[in-house]
């Protein structure tokens, strides 16, 4: 593994290895002194062309705890006007001899292009509406801790699916681990071509959240931006919350063991009610806490190679 660009590039075994290594990384988090020497002397650039708080912070902490030199850079998504191409920009950084670039970019596919242009290891930290693989890995890690082996488990992913990079990575990751997946959204928020896609990849779709909830082991609520209303994706926030929000009433439809996930940031009162977000079965904070451990594991597998993390 040189890059982490898309979950589609990983086998089920590789995903499992990353999750397994994350378990031991998670233990580091509880130590008073958290440094591991693993990546001493390695240089990691967090190159974020789009704002991010939690992803950037957790990648930076992950790198620091593994003793890498981490540097944060921000860039504008488009530098067409400046006359410098994205290729020029990243080649400049690559020429300084860095080992890894962690890329967040508002345009889908940018990390894959950068991997073609440069020699260093590339991690996709979220590209446009394409993928967010580290998020999917930490979600799988969190679900696995809550539910055990995900094979045969049923996960519903609900929300603004067409604009969600989290959806695409989670769908691939959960399917690779053998989970059943049902996408739930109004037709306007389903990904383009979802009928052909679901037939090819073996997942379900539904417009009826109430019908799906009683059958799931986990429900993953995705953020719905209020601005989507202006694009005509749904009429009002109120209507969305009533039809597709995880309301207090809908909590009662879940099986006793079923858990709730949300990759954040949450829109309380829209896609998720306070009752659901703060419920005992909510994994929201576990997801955040798993973020550092899973990202340490990713850095380890890409930069340190195979073997025992300790």
């Amino acid at each position, binding site marked *: 593994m040189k890059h982490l660009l898309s979950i589609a590039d990983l086998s089920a075994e590789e995903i499992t290895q990353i999750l397994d290594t994350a378990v031991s990384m998670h233990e580091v988090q509880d130590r008073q002194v958290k440094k591991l020497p693993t990546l001493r002397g390695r240089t990691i650039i967090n190159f974020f062309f789009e704002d991010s708080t939690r992803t950037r912070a957790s990648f930076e902490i992950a790198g620091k705890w593994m003793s890498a030199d981490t540097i944060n850079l921000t860039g504008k998504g488009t530098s067409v006007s400046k006359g410098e191409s994205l290729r020029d920009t990243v080649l400049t950084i690559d020429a300084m001899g860095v080992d890894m670039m962690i890329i967040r970019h508002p*345009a889908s596919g940018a990390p*894959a292009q950068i991997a073609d242009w440069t020699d260093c290891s590339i991690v996709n930290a979220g590209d446009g509406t394409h993928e967010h693989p580290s998020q999917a890995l930490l979600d799988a890690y969190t679900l696995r801790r809550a539910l055990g082996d995900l094979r045969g488990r049923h996960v519903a992913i609900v929300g603004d699916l067409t604009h969600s990079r989290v959806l695409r990575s989670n769908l691939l990751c959960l399917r690779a681990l053998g989970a059943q997946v049902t996408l739930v959204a109004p037709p306007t928020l389903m990904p383009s*071509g979802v009928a*052909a*896609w679901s037939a090819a990849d073996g997942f379900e779709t539904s417009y009826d959240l109430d019908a799906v909830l009683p059958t799931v082991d986990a429900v993953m609520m995705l953020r719905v931006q209020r601005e989507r209303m202006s694009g005509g994706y749904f009429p009002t926030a109120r209507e969305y919350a009533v039809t597709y929000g995880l309301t207090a009433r809908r909590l009662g439809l879940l099986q006793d063991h079923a858990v709730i996930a949300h990759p954040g940031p949450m829109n309380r009162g829209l896609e998720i009610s306070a009752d659901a977000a703060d419920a005992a079965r909510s994994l929201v904070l576990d997801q955040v806490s798993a973020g550092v451990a899973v990202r340490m594991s990713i850095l380890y597998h890409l930069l340190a190679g195979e073997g025992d993390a300790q």
Partner: protein
Amino acid sequence: MSRTPALLVRGADLAGGGAGDVLVVDGTIRAVGTDAAADAPEGVQRLDADGLVLLPGLVDLHTHLREPGREDAETIETGSQAAAVGGFTAVLAMANTTPVTDSAEVAETVLDLGRRAGYVDVHPVGAVTKGLAGQELAELGLMARSRARVRVFSDDGRCVDDARLMRRALEYVKGFGGVVSQHAQDPRLADGTACCHEGELSGRLGLPGWPAVAEETIVARDVMLARHTGSRVHVAHVSTAGSVEVLRWAKAQGIAVTAEVTPHHLMLTEGELAGYDPTFKVNPPLRPAEDTRALREALADGTIDAVATDHAPHVRQDKEHAFADAAFGMLGLETALPVVSTVMVAEGLMTWADVARTMSSAPARIAGLSDQGRGLTTGAPANLTLVDPTRSHTVDRALSRSLSRNNPWHGRRLTGAVHLTMLRGQVTAREGLVWGATA
């Protein structure tokens, strides 16, 4: 190189009509057929063309030569050279230059630069609206009356989406036999960010979708406007099976609509986008194989009248961005004939007579060019393209005469190559090399 006084092209397949000779004297076709040699004057040059196909010079309804304004990407001279190498003897240069070709002055500048280069006839396309802004008509009549004699008008790159403005443009150009070439893209259904055919692939790749219906609704609207106004409308770069259905229906009604398809929409499909390589970013986007099939059938059966390249050079730094941020467009002039030969002729969908129709006579007729596309007939200007139909070659973008390198065919093997191009009796290109055309 100065004009060949007399040339006898011997034994070529005459545009699919069987082997024969063509005698060129003083820039004009003097005789055609098996006994053409009988009229040859003393000292005539002979060109043995056994196994080659002789076509009337190719005419491209749709090029972007970038001058004035972006001479770093292409100039009228380099674009003309690429055209000559590709077998063209006339090209229409789109209006989205800087300044926009929306006045007689700019149109005449483009015409003059084309003449000075001398490799092909360069005919400026006039903008439909001032500054391509889609608000008010450009001075269509003054462009038509200028030395450039503009007859084709297009806001290409942008759709004339205002129905009332489109209606007026169609009506107005009737006054001087003009035609509006529409870039069919409803901007509400496919805005400037749309860059991938909307469907399963755009869903998976997370790229903004460009749905087929955004083209089809404009094509449908415009054929109805053409019927209502009794005007001619031309549809640029048709890319979907649905548009083909609308065109087929409209032609059956006798509506005066013509259409073009690009070589890239005939050969390449959306799957090229899987690696996010901006070389394959083009507007309208590459479509699924079902559309490609429908476009090939429509070109073969005449529903689509012409092949047009939409040659769109871009400098490297405008393409080497994230896919969503990179410029739209790909090169096309040098590869058009080989692509059509590969996907249409070699596949048995079209004859060389069909190639002569779709790449020479039909586009010349649509553009109102009287001395182009007249075929291999006695008395016609000697605008000729000699093709080696069986020669395979691997495209190398480094060998292009264009200033730009955004060539989607790089590394691909194509069958059929332009051997020689002649403009009014002057050889303008031979075996991929430009021959100095003007003394």
